[in-house]
């Protein structure tokens, strides 16, 4: 048998010489920029956007470096490198983010060029993970595996990654710019809360095209993205985005950082006027220079060819036997394993949300283990999901039990994907310079309160998302139960919202009542859950559906009646 390098079958864009040369040049460029900063040739004001565009923030305790994981997909080799960097330059762990990236929290500025150099060795970088540029394009964590997929979002996310890399016109935008793509019938990428949300679909002729939503976003002024064009043909994909970005770059507000996102431009200009401006640019840009040639798309698509699946029966007897013998495993399969389009395979979610743990954190030892498991069970590939978990997308059903056994032994076998324990939390005031309150301790208290797997399954699909400030990195606005940390005269308080929805039926949650203390917040969430359980028609009525039916009153009454 020929030797195949680990990761060679992974569904990522595989670098060639030109890509490597580019990333290498960027590392050297940043090395010189750091030297110029330390020598005083660049002021902090001038250096800040430059370091941000290389993923480097200054946080409470040190610099934070955010590594790009394009559309959340990486190889086992890359993950091992991340583990090794975490040991050598950080404190032995990393934090997976809601933008499908990885962050280190204890980085030194003077080490950064060396870290970026090490990343370049495995075709990784930290480019455009921050700054007022087009950020890492995100997509469905089940891309290329989901049974309900229509178009492979990675292909277009990669085209955008390349097209937006050091874009000469759009690197100093009014504010950051986030794009998400979903190519499946269920939206797992929260496209309607992004600056640009793309729904990739096919027309009657089978050709790929895109529905464009613009102006979604969370933060201080949450907006659901508005439909700007129902159908943009594949060949116009780049031209249409270029038109949107040019309108935004020229007309987006620069006088007030809180009003600088494209959502405010769309809101203030009005949807019709915004559309007209974009269409005018688009009509002019459309042409050979910006046309996305089918050959280019085919060339990119070749990188994402399916791995060499074996022909397997749909039903795995080994899996059924293991489930029957081991209830904890059966529970994990029921909760963390999703249907694969290839018979005999499954998609496994590795929860980074152990009860009482820090959401999204993984130790370097855990990263190494996951890399090993990805090689043995998923063609050397893994994904980071926007809910801060890891996904092995192509696992043989026959091997699920072996996989779970090793995960469980390493504290990675928590069965809570999509359940109440699968909490999203931003780093909050424990790390973040922008935060007003801590997020992690509340997430820990809540996941410990609802640790019982049987109770979690009885409650069913119910997401809790926590942000430590109004910038909403924890996506609290779109959670079934959202929690926002606020500072009231030096004390941390938490404001609870209910009824948010990240999917295509996107909705911003409503504030339930006055903010409460951390301890009260845990009790309040439990009270909300109890009211839901008492009111739901049956097991199949989800929390948000019960909420829609019975309204806020019973929930408010229960939480605030005692006051």
């Amino acid at each position: 048998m020929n030797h195949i390098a680990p990761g060679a079958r992974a569904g990522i864009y595989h670098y060639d010489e030109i890509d490597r040369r580019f990333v290498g040049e960027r590392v050297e460029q940043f090395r010189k920029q750091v030297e110029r900063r330390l020598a005083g040739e660049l002021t902090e004001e001038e250096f800040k956007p430059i370091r941000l565009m290389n993923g480097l923030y200054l946080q409470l305790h040190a610099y934070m470096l955010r590594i790009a994981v394009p559309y959340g997909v990486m190889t086992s080799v890359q993950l091992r490198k991340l583990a090794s960097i975490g040991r050598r330059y950080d404190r032995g762990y990393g934090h997976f983010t809601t933008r499908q990236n990885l962050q280190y929290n204890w980085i030194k500025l003077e080490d950064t060029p060396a870290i970026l150099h090490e990343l370049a060795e495995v075709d990784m970088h930290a480019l455009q993970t921050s700054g007022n540029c087009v950020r890492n394009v995100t997509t469905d964590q089940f891309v290329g595996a989901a049974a309900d997929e229509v178009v492979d979002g990675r292909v277009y996310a990669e085209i955008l990654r390349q097209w937006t890399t050091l874009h000469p016109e759009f690197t100093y935008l009014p504010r950051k710019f986030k794009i998400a793509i979903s190519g499946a019938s269920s939206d797992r990428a929260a496209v309607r809360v992004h600056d640009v949300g793309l729904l990739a679909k096919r027309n009657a002729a089978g050709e790929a095209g895109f529905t464009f939503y613009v102006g979604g976003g969370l933060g201080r002024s949450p907006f659901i993205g508005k439909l700007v064009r129902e159908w943009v043909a594949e060949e116009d994909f780049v031209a249409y985005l270029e038109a949107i970005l040019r309108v935004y770059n020229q007309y987006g507000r620069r006088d007030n950082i809180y009003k600088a996102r494209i959502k405010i431009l769309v809101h203030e200009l009005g949807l019709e006027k915004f559309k007209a401006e974009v269409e005018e640019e688009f009509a002019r840009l459309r042409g050979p220079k910006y046309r996305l040639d089918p050959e280019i798309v085919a060339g990119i698509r070749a990188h994402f060819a399916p791995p060499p699946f074996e022909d397997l029966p749909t039903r795995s007897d080994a899996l059924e036997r293991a489930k029957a013998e081991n209830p904890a495993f059966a529970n994990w399969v029921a909760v963390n394993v999703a249907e694969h389009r290839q018979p005999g395979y499954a998609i496994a979610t590795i929860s980074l949300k152990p009860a009482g743990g820090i959401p999204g954190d993984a130790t370097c030892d855990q990263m190494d283990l996951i890399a090993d498991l990805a090689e043995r069970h998923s063609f050397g590939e893994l994904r980071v999901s926007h809910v801060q978990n890891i996904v092995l997308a192509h696992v043989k059903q026959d091997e699920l039990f072996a996989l779970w056994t090793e995960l469980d032994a390493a504290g990675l076998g928590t069965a809570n994907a999509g359940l109440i324990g699968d909490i999203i939390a931003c780093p909050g005031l424990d790390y973040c310079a922008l935060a007003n309150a801590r997020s992690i301790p509340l997430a820990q208290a809540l996941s410990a309160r609802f640790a019982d797997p049987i109770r979690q399954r009885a409650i069913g699909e119910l997401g809790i998302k926590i942000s430590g400030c109004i910038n909403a990195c924890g996506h609290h606005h779109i959670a079934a139960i959202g929690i926002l940390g606020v500072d009231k005269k030096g004390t941390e308080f938490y404001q609870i919202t209910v009824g948010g929805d990240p999917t295509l039926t996107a909705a911003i949650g409503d504030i339930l009542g006055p903010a409460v203390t951390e301890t009260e917040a845990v009790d309040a969430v439990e009270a909300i859950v109890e009211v839901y359980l008492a009111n739901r028609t049956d097991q199949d009525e989800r929390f948000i559906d019960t909420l829609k039916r019975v309204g806020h009153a019973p929930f408010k009454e229960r939480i605030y009646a005692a006051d």
Partner: protein
Amino acid sequence: MPSQDGSLKAITANRLRDGVVVFLGPDWNAGGEVATAWVESFADAALFPAAEAETALAAAKPRAERAQFGVDIYAFDVETENGVPTPVKMRERIRALGPSVRLDLGKQAAA
């Protein structure tokens, strides 16, 4: 000596080359090298009555910036609890100690 009325301030920065939290120390105006003006532990930080903190900040900040030593330089409120100076805001407590969810990390771990 710190007064007991709670209106004290300390001055802090992040060190440019590694981002580490530093505080203006007692020798800040002794005329030595910029680096010797700053200390890593809050326990060693100089405490200023509010009026003096402004003057000290106005003097120390440009020095630290010119020497490419520190960034994000500002003063914050300190109160004394049982005679021990403590930052008033949670944010500054966490900067002085480390993450409250990882007691094995940050300045608190070394203590």
